[in-house]
């Protein structure tokens, strides 16, 4: 466990840079994490995924599977991979300020 500074705020992150306390998150932090992960501009489509991811984690206590993400976020799987090229579930979770998803699917 260590801390990282995003948008002028110190937040707790794990070894891979996933925030461990979702309450420390805000939209400016999301913008900066996205930029550091190769996504220069978060579009409305990105935000649909990020917000769904976050809401789902806060309600269920775990991140949704890629299958659920594709069905329920409003963004189909093909587009998820275009929006978040290096692994949509993990990247979206990182930007959403929630812990790393642990599922295999």
């Amino acid at each position, binding site marked *: 466990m260590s801390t990282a500074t995003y948008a002028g705020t110190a937040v707790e992150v794990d070894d891979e840079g996933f925030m461990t306390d979702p309450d420390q998150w805000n939209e400016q932090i999301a913008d900066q994490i996205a930029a550091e992960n190769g996504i220069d501009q978060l579009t409305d489509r990105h935000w649909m995924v990020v917000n769904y991811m976050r809401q789902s984690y806060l309600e269920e206590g775990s991140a949704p599977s890629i299958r659920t993400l594709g069905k329920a976020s409003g963004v189909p799987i093909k587009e998820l991979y275009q929006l978040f090229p290096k*692994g949509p579930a*993990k990247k979206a979770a990182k930007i959403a300020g929630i812990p790393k998803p642990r599922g295999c*699917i």
Partner: protein
Amino acid sequence: MSELLEQTESNGQTATADQADGSGNEPIKKVSVIISKGSLEGIYPGLIMANGARMEGIEASVFFTFFGLDAINKSKHENVKVSTVGNPGLHLATMVGGLPGVSAMVTKKLNAEMEKLDIPPIPEFIEMISDSGAPLYGCKASVDLFGLSSDDFIPQVNDIITVGEFYDYAAGGQIIFT
């Protein structure tokens, strides 16, 4: 049966190779998964490995050969069954495994368990993998052997290829045989 699920789950996790772990090992960048068996428990592990690779940002492709072709065969992929004969992992008496309806019953139970874990049925899973950008290939030798043609396969199949072409496409990556 839950043991089988745990096994395939932990298999999925071994695909994690997002970043160097400090040991100096190069992260895996590309995998070519071969699926050679036509039973439910023969097909899922390869699909989970391929999908898991894409989720980690690893380039992946899937090559279906021999009875593994059933997974992409339009008329068969919705009816893939657990093999209940000669499958010691099920801990069923061999003669019970061969009784009519047992394979269907075990398959139904396993499918229900997988649905609970949000693991999709084979046709949906293959569509997901294709949508993730992983190409799907059928093995030409097997297609010829079974007297099939490209019309017999689901539209997500990119091509029917020879073994030589498979190795060309797999160049520079890891090959996973299941």
